[in-house]
């Protein structure tokens, strides 16, 4: 694509979240088209790329880091992206996914799937759960945080515009808690 040289390369990633943060991004409605005019969305649940590409300018990450897959993924993303943004409370603080942290994982899985389920599941190619679901900043360096459950669409847009222009976003009047 000829425009690729001038357009920013943006990715969106979904770890252990509910998709609400991605939905809030889509709640920009027609403004999604404006974002698409300025940036190529090169990876994410709404596009079909299978592998996280190299040289991404900005990545929005929804969700906490909960499984070994999540951990591997976020480490790879960190290496391949210039500006890494924690999108929403799950990525920022652990939020809902971290509510399981008081329960040992094996007990959690045995409760859900029956005794001995965890060993069986992991043998069969399902990613192993980490002992704790943690926010992004506990495992990688995060360049910006957008709080909210989910953050309002306007805050997401503002952060995108500022960060892509190399500015530090000021979201003080835009974020909401919970």
């Amino acid at each position, binding site marked *: 694509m000829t425009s690729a040289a001038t357009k920013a390369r943006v990715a969106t990633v979904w770890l252990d979240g509910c*998709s609400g943060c991605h939905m809030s991004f889509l709640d920009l409605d027609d403004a999604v088209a404006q974002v*698409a005019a300025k940036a190529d969305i090169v990876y994410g649940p709404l596009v079909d790329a299978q592998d996280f590409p190299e040289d991404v300018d900005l990545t929005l990450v929804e969700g906490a880091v909960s499984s070994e897959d999540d951990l591997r993924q976020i480490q790879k993303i960190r290496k391949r992206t210039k500006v890494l943004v924690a999108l929403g409370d799950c990525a920022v603080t652990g939020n809902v996914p971290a509510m399981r942290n008081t329960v040992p994982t094996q007990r959690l899985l045995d409760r859900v*799937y029956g005794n001995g*389920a965890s060993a069986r599941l992991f043998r069969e190619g399902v990613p192993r759960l980490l002992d704790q679901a943690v926010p992004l900043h506990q495992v990688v360096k995060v360049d910006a945080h957008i709080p909210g459950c989910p953050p309002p669409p306007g805050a997401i847009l503002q952060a995108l515009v500022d960060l892509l222009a190399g500015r530090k976003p000021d979201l003080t009047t835009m974020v909401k808690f919970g």
Partner: protein
Amino acid sequence: MTKTITIPHVTRIEGHAKISIYLDEHGRVDRTHLHVTQVRGFEKFVEGRPYYEMPGITARICGICPVSHALASAKACEGIMAIRIPKPARMLREVLHLSQFVQSHALSYFYLSAPDLLLGMDEPVASRNIVGLLAKYPDRARDGIELRKFGQQAIAALAGERIHASWVVPGGVNQPLTLEARDSILRGVPAAREILRRAIAGHKASLDRFAEEIANFGATPDLYAGLVDEHGAPGLYDGRIRFVAGGPHVIATGLDPAAYEDFIAEAPQPGTYLKSPFYRPLGFPDGVYRVGPLARLNVIDQLPTEEAGEELAAFRSLCGRMPSSGFHYHYARLIEALYAVERLEHLLTDPAILDRHVRAKAAVNELEAVGCIEAPRGILIHHYKVDDKGAIKWANLIVATGHNSAAMDRAVESVSRRFIDGGNIQEGMLNRVCAVVRAYDPCLSCSTHALGIPDLVVELIPPDKAATSASSGTPPSPRRPSP
């Protein structure tokens, strides 16, 4: 040599899944597997929380259909309180729910699947998405954006926020509807209907092009379940469960969702966090059934609104009385969205909806209750037990996508057999395999919460023994988790 093809991320779906396709030594598809790779454990970590927090917590299971979880949860809470909510509150909740149907179906059809349906399964990866759709079919893409926006704005007009609002509370809703909010929703109705008319006409016209997909997108299990009201119309907010097999043969009707354990059991599946529910009297796997838009249209007798009623008749004359191809989930979704728009208009024009009595109050009066609703993706059940102070002692969630897990697995295999050529693997082939998953519009971040009936032993039963071993004996009662 045998070989495995892996699709590590099924894209344009709600949630995380990967697909393994195992080829035999001749490069032919031997078997396939859909792995759901996220598990969250809501049932466990909510133990000890006050029951009235449950609508807010469980809404966070899914950002696409938070309203369904909030409503199923609130209904279970009202069972705990042993109350019936005021009629205006029920009407308002129904409008909220219908608005969610519109936005969720719009997301599924236009944002997630239209890139396959309009741009084509073999469209290059870089443009096979909503942005590519905007470039090539701007009018259709804008229709999708506008329709989703209509649903989301209606939710915001009612509940104050588009996602994770705290308006639904045990006992009703926490604010009555204002005249302005009502009128703002009603103003959007004609455009939403227009969009759906166009989409349905376009979809019908495209059916011939997808003959191959229709033939191969999985046609089993040929047993469907949905909530139906006393007039044989969909009971989206409230109804009784009906099971219908191809034919149609009504297998059971009028079943009380509160007694779901008597007729639904769950079988854990290998290699996935998803479990497969089945209709207990038929055993596993004969009792495996489908839910969601296609299943709902197959189990009902009528759609009691004008245009959707006509479209249901057209659907049945085009595709048959009991269409079984998974591909028809798309078509069914559009008809349901039209029904939702008409029905919410009908409710909003009833003056009773502006009534200010929208919340009933009570404390804990029952120690166990079930709340059940039709989420956009199918039957959703919340089941709680509390102590006498109202702290959750045990919770079970059976979510829509879980019911469809066997159907999706079989559909993936059917599509793989038809479209995958092990000697010459093209990206478009793999996309067709993903597309069949998209037709079911799974919500996988929801689906792996299913706890099921814990006493059911984790084992795979050969099909010839299934009926006897799964249906004999009395249904086990849920047991307390080990401390």
